[in-house]
Structure formats: structure tokens, C-alpha cells
């Protein structure tokens, strides 16, 4: 007999057995027979099994003594790693303003470190504006924007920048570094998608991290790599239909880390094709590019509406401190309640807002500075390009000029040591240069180099002198 037959037989005999005593029993008009009983029994059995706790190995909580002992035994790492020679870096200490020439150790030096692109440090109009503001408002605002920390000059500056850029609205942040790290998480949350350049500065990296969105990186300033990433996303969409999420491309106009210029027009074409929004950091281009100095988008004839979010630090061309984010009124209004660095930090000191207003006015009126800057950049690059042992990085138009070792020593630290020697010796020759420094927290792994910030107010003779000294120094160091 088959197994099935046996079971059938068994249930049938069981059913008749159970049927017998209850034959014809009717409860509430419901005929009760063995079938019914069996099924009830089964249901009860299943319920019983379901209610049982699943098997778990016996877990005994630690006793107090055991916890005490564990706490006793625990040895934490020190708060910070041991101090190495490399950490003990003493930056130059300035005894006067960080203008085209400054004073270090009592000596006048040519300053190529300050991103004072338009030469507005020391500008008398700006100082006048600051003095008036200091007298009227004091220094600090003593409160966040929400709680009586909004001062009329903040509103004026926001309106001024919006008018300057041609955007509907602008929001101020009290610090450049906090701008990207607040603005990005205000719009991108978990589940959203950001495609960013791998060379973005730390402030943006921090914003990307805090947003908890999915982040994909493309090769530094490589448009085909960006397109590949976009295409990947598109392909994945085709395979799996998902709810629409917010998508951003994040780039810098002129990269702080390399001085390269983003091909913004192409990126805008791509972002429209793939339906992304775009977030551009114009920190190193505002006031410098375009017919009216509005930035890279103007230089490339991109209508400002096509850039969804523009941010910039005011610590460069505007010779002030702070940052702003500009865009549609929706973009701005949303940040007023959800930009962490906006809501939970004291507002920009009013005198710095006044300084920025004055700076924007100067940029609007005085187009000469921009021309001077471009001339100086071209002049310096011409001279630097002839230095054996170094190569020029960065875009030909970029006011940030990077110099790299033509022959790398093979390691980051090795290159760093050589370049630092060059920088140190240049200071002895009264030229203040800087080596690009990288925090261990920074994910951008672009090579190290000497970073030169050109200003409109640099004298040509000074720039020439710098090139000549640099040639000498590099020669002596690389030959030894």
C-alpha cells in the first residue's frame, strides 16, 4: 500500500471513530461531525505551536560583577594618536593684512597665498562700510537668524547678491565651510541620489556624508566619466522602476583642489538629458568670470535658471567671511527652516555683511579688476611654465594656479617634503607660497602641489620676481 493510502485509511477510521459518539449532534443548527472536530484540533495545535517561543540558546545577562570587571579591563585608545614631527607645522604668522604684499617675521613678503583675487583686501570703501557697521551694530549678532539675529544688512546683502546673480533669492550662511554641508542635506535625504566629482572640497564631502543619500563619484573633471555614471543610473532605472527620487550633480566651478574648470555647459546639457538637478560651488569664480562677474555660468552663457543651486564662499573674491546659497525662492525658503548651519548658528557679523555689500558694489562698478586678474594669471603662467622640474596644473583662466612636481618621488609624503622645502626657501626669499595641505579626513586624493592664488593687485614686477626666485630654488633643491 502507498503512504498516501495509509494516511487516508487512518484518517477515515479516525473520522468514523470520532463520528460515532457525536453522530447527528447539532449545535446552533450546525452539524458537528468528526471532520469538524479534527479540524478544530488541528487549528488548536497550530495555534499552540505558533505561540511557543522560538528556540533560543539560554542567554544569561551579565552580572553586575562581570560588567564591573569588563569596565575595569577596558583600555581605551588615547584621544589622539602620538604627535609626529609632521604634525608640528607652524604656519607663517602675518603682522599685517594679507594683501598682495604682507609682513611675516618683520619682513615684507610677496603674498601668493591669499585668495584675495580682486585685490579687495585693504580697499578703503570696504573699510569705510565696515567702520560704519561696527559703530552702529557692534561686532557680533549675538543670536541666530530666527531669534532677532536678522539684521537689516543681512537682508540687504541677500537682496544684493540675488540681484547681482539674477536669481530670485539668496540665503546667507555665517561661514563658507558650513554652506555646502548645510545646503546639501537640506535637499538630499536617504534614498536620494547624488553624483559628485571625486575632487570636491571637504565642505561638500561633509554635506554629502550628512545627507545620507546614495553618492556616486565620477573621475575628477572628466565629463565622459560623468556621462557613464549617468548612463548607469539610467540603465538601472530601465531595469527597475522605482519611485522618483531627487537627483543632483554636484560640482565646483573652479575646483579648490586642482584649479580645474568644470565644463559647466556640457554638464548642464547632461543634467537636462538625464533629469538631474545641479549644485554648483562658485567659490573661486564669483566676481571673476563672466561679463558682469557673476561666475562661470555667465562666462559660459548658461542662463542662471538652469543652475538649480549655486553656493559660494565670501572669503575669496569678496574679501569677506561667510557663504551664501542662491537659487529659486523655493530653494532658499526651504533652507531657512532646514539648513542646519543657518538655523542653529549665530548670524554673520553685520560688519562682514556690510563688507560683502560694498564688495559686490565694487565688482558691479569696476570691471577693471577682473581684467587685471586675468592679465596677471596669464603673465604668471607664462613665466612659471618655463621652470624645469615643475608642471603647471589648473585651468589657464583659473586664479588658483597649481604647480606639481614633474617627476613625483613616488609617494605623497615624499612629494610633500620636497615641495615644502621649496615653499620654505621661497619664504626666505620673501615670497609667501603655500603647499596644498590635506587632512586625513579628506577623501579627495588628488596629488599634492604648490598652490598660488593670483590677485588683481599683484604687481607684474613682483610676479616676475616670484618666477625667477622659484626657478632658482627649484633648481637648487631638485639637483641636490
Amino acid at each position, binding site marked *: 500500500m502507498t503512504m498516501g493510502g495509509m494516511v487516508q485509511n487512518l484518517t477515515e477510521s479516525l473520522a468514523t471513530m470520532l463520528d460515532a459518539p457525536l453522530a447527528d449532534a447539532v449545535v446552533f443548527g450546525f452539524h458537528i461531525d468528526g471532520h469538524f472536530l479534527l479540524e478544530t484540533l488541528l487549528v488548536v495545535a497550530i495555534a499552540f505551536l505558533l505561540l511557543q517561543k522560538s528556540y533560543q540558546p539560554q542567554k544569561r545577562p*551579565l552580572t553586575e560583577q562581570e*560588567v564591573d570587571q*569588563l*569596565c575595569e579591563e577596558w*583600555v*581605551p*585608545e*588615547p*584621544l*589622539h594618536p602620538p604627535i609626529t614631527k609632521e604634525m608640528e*607645522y607652524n*604656519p607663517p*604668522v602675518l603682522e*599685517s*593684512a*594679507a594683501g598682495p604684499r*604682507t609682513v611675516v617675521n618683520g619682513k615684507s613678503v610677496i*603674498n601668493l*597665498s*591669499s*585668495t584675495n583675487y580682486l585685490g579687495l583686501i*585693504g580697499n578703503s570703501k570696504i*573699510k569705510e562700510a565696515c*567702520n560704519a557697521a*561696527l559703530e*552702529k551694530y*557692534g*561686532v*557680533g549678532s*549675538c*543670536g541666530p537668524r530666527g531669534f*532677532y539675529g*536678522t539684521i*537689516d544688512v*543681512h*537682508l540687504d546683502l541677500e537682496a544684493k547678491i540675488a540681484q547681482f546673480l539674477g536669481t530670485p533669492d539668496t540665503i546667507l550662511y*555665517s561661514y563658507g*565651510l*558650513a554652506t555646502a554641508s548645510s545646503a546639501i542635506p537640506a*535637499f538630499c535625504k536617504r534614498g536620494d541620489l547624488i553624483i559628485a566629482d571625486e575632487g570636491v572640497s*571637504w*565642505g561638500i564631502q*561633509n554635506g554629502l556624508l*550628512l545627507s545620507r543619500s546614495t553618492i556616486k563619484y565620477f573621475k575628477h573633471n572628466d565629463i565622459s566619466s560623468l556621462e557613464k555614471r549617468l548612463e548607469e543610473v539610467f540603465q538601472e532605472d530601465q531595469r527597475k522602476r522605482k519611485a522618483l527620487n531627487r537627483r543632483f550633480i554636484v560640482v565646483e566651478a573652479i575646483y579648490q583642489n586642482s584649479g580645474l574648470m568644470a565644463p559647466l555647459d556640457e554638464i548642464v546639457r547632461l543634467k537636462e538629458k538625464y*533629469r538631474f*538637478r545641479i549644485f554648483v560651488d562658485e567659490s573661486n569664480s564669483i566676481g571673476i568670470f563672466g561679463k558682469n562677474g557673476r561666475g562661470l555660468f555667465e562666462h559660459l552663457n548658461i542662463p542662471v535658471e538652469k543652475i538649480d543651486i549655486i553656493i559660494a564662499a565670501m572669503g575669496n573674491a569678496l574679501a569677506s*567671511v561667510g557663504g551664501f546659497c542662491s537659487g529659486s525662492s*523655493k530653494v532658499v525658503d*526651504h533652507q531657512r527652516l532646514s539648513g*542646519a*548651519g543657518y538655523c*542653529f*548658528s*549665530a548670524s554673520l*557679523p553685520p*560688519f562682514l555683511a556690510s563688507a560683502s555689500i560694498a564688495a559686490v558694489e565694487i565688482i558691479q562698478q569696476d570691471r577693471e579688476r577682473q581684467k587685471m586678474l586675468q592679465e596677471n594669471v596669464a603673465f604668471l603662467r607664462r613665466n612659471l611654465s618655463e621652470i624645469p622640474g615643475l608642471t603647471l596644473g589648473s585651468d589657464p583662466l583659473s586664479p588658483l594656479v597649481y604647480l606639481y612636481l614633474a617627476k613625483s618621488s613616488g609617494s605623497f609624503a615624499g612629494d610633500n617634503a620636497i615641495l615644502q622645502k621649496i615653499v620654505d626657501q621661497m619664504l626666505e626669499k620673501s615670497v609667501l607660497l603655500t603647499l596644498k*595641505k590635506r*587632512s586625513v579626513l579628506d577623501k579627495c586624493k588628488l596629488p599634492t602641489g604648490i*598652490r598660488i*592664488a593670483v590677485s588683481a593687485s599683484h604687481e607684474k614686477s613682483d610676479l616676475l620676481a616670484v618666477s625667477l626666485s622659484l626657478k632658482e630654488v627649484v633648481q637648487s633643491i631638485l639637483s641636490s
Partner: protein
Amino acid sequence: MATVPYFVVLTTYFSYGLLFVIGHLRDFFRSLFYKDRSTAEGYAPLCRDFEDFYTRRLYHRIQDCFNRPIASAPDAWIEVIGRVSRDNNQTLYRTYQNQRCLNLSSYNYLGFAASDEYCTPRVMESLETFSPSTCSTRIDCGTTVIHQELEEMVARFVGKPAAMVYGMGFATNSTTLPALIGKGGLIISDSLNHSSIVAGARGSGAKVQVFQHNTPSHLEQVLREAIAEGQPRTRRPWKKIIVVVEGIYSMEGELCRLSEIVSVTQKYKAYIYLDEAHSIGAIGKTGRGVCEHDGVDPAKIDVMMGTFTKSFGSCGGYIAGSKELITYLKHVSPGHIYATSMSPPAVQQVISALKVILGEDGSDRGARKLAQVRENSNYFRQELRRMGCEVLGDENSPVMPFMLYNPAKIPAFSRECLKRNVAVVTVGFPATPLLLARARVCISASHTKEDLDLGLEVISEVSDMAHLKYFPQMESFSKVKSV
């Protein structure tokens, strides 16, 4: 905090429920008649409906109570700029009609916000020498002699071997914490810690746990469990644990129970990070913050953080600690390496304010300011209590929130006070828990006795209107008032 009366709980929930229902009804009708065309085809909306529901349906109704612009220094009296709306509070326009108001809102504890006989001339001098900005980071050419001077002074003031300054208080926290701790580490944070600490903790990659606000016993429990269990999944021991607390909690007015917390962290070998944003300069006999107030040796605090935006009337923040810690942070912290250095005139403001506080300006103004803010705070707090308001916070703290509870009382209180020329801060959800909307007063050394009495009188009157006197009024209030 006292328990919330049942009636209040009920009415508050009812109010929010009503706002919620009406908001959704309006959303529903809007979706019938109005098509949002601001989002282009194929794009997800920039803010989803549920994300800005609160903004559209709750906040906009009362947005005139926030972000009120002023046209003066945030001193004891301010010029509040009038605003009107022609579209039901959706947008506000400046009217250019200013209103002189008593300022009970700014963090101007020592009265350094306005121009000052000692500070301002020096600040202007530094502006002449250094310009408003260095346009550079601290490690390039953004370090001036006054930055160095300030770092030395801060170290001396807080009683630590070394210090470093940043250009923004928020960024001080958000860039220092990631430099101190990372994967494999644990940050144990007070449940009411400031958003900058939250940003720093999240940005660090360390695990974050919270302990009940200002409760050392719960901190101990969390620490014991954390150490006993180790890291999740792998069960490896934690690399290190940092406990983060604040000196004064700005929405509670409470002082940190520092000495108890320090004994817990020391017992369990956790590091302690103390954010003295509101307490430095504001409390302690000589203004040295909660350590001095609580009699805790600063040597026991591993990382001392503070800001210059409050008591010193400037901007920026500092970290103080051992020489090695500061050397390390200067090598790693992105706020030091990548950010524009603190504006030189702002640096000078802090130096000058510190000199006044330390009496190095050759006067006793600093000591008087410190005594004044303490006296003013205690007087104001005591009077509010006598009135029957439910005041939060501790003795000596210049921050004193008092409870409003019902959402409708937020705009009512704020607008009625403004009508009577008093500027106070009101806060509700989401800055506070749903039930616990409150008003907040910040007292300054620059308030005179008349200012305080005027403020009390107005608050008392408005509190009567809004039924804020949740506790029985004490006799002596009216007596004191009539003197």
C-alpha cells in the same frame, strides 16, 4: 521639569490635531484645484509634501513671530523692523517703520554686543591693520599675530595648556568631533545636545548613543552597557568613548551637572567633551564657565569647546585642551585647514572683551558685568517664578525658558509682547517636543533694573492674557512690583 497638567496635554494635542486636520483638508482641496507646476516633468519635487507640510500649514501661519529683522545692535534695546503681509503671512514685507523694543532675546550676556568704549576702538584699529578678512585658511596665510594672541588668551582664560580658534561656533563642533573619533568609536551625547554636535557626531562615522538629558545615573548605565557589550555585531571593545555635554542648555536654561558627570566619565575611562557655548563668560565668579561654577578642575575636561558669539559679542569658536591635542587638531581638523580664518576684527573683539573680563583693561568693568548678569538673571528668574510662570533652568543661568504649551500661545505671547515693545523668543515644535512649546528670556548685564521691571510687567500682563501662570501666584510678587 514639572509634569504637564492633563488639561494642558489635552488641549495641546487637540490644537495640533486640529491644525493637522485643517492643514490636510487644505492640502486636499489644493490638490483638487491647483496643480503645482514648479517641478518639471521627470523630476522629484525639491521638497516632498510631507516634508514641508509643517512649513506650509503650521509655520507660515505664525512666521511673523520668527526671523524678525532688527536695525540696530542686539543690545538691551533694539530697533525691530516692522513687517506686513498681504497674503496671509505667506510673504512678509519690511515697512521701514521701526519699533524700539526691550531685547530679552539675544545671547548678549555680558553686554558686549553693542559698540563698547574699550573694545570698539581696538576693533576698528585691527580692521585698519588687517582688513575684514584674510581670504585664506589658518594654515596658509590666515594666521595673524592677533589670532595667536587670542589662542594664548583663551587657553589662559579657560585654564588649559593650549587652544585653537575657529571662525564659527557651529563649525567648531562639526569639524572637531570627526577629527577626534571615527569608526569603532562611540559618542555618548546628551539627548538635548545642540545641532552642531549632532552634525559633528554624524560626520565622524562613530556610533552615537544618547543618555537622558543631564542625568549622570543614566549616563553611567549607558556607559556600562556600552563597554560590556562592545561594538555591535563584532563585539570588539570600543576604541574610545567620548561623552559630549553642554555647559548651559540653551533651550532649557539648565546648567550641566558637570562634577557628577565628570566622576562618571573618569570612572569609566571615557573622554569628556564640554561645549561651553552659552556658559563661557556668562557664569562662574570670574566668567570661566561651568567648570568654575561647579568647582571642577579644567584639567579633568579633555576637550573644552566654546563660542565667541554669546558673551563676547563676536563670532567664532574655540577648542582648548592639552598642547598635544591642539597640535593634533591643527593637523587634522578641516575647520582649521580648509576654512577661511576668523575675521581679524572679530578676533580683536574677543581679545578686548577677554581683557575687560580679566580686568586687564585697568578697570573693574568686567567684574561688574559678571556680577550684574548674575544678579539680573536671578532677579528676573525669581520674579517670573513668583508670578506663577513655569520657569525652567537653574539659578545663575542667564537663560530662562518658561512654558507656553499650547501652540496657539506661541504667536499670542510673541505678538502681544511685541505690541508692548518687548522682544522675546518663542519656540515650539520641532525645536522642542510637541507638548513643550516655550518662551525664552536671555538676560544681559546691560539690562538695567528698570528694563527688567518693565519686561516683568509686560510678561506678567501678557501671561495673564494667555493664561501662562500655571502655578499659583505668590503674594510677594505684587508687593515687589509696587515698590
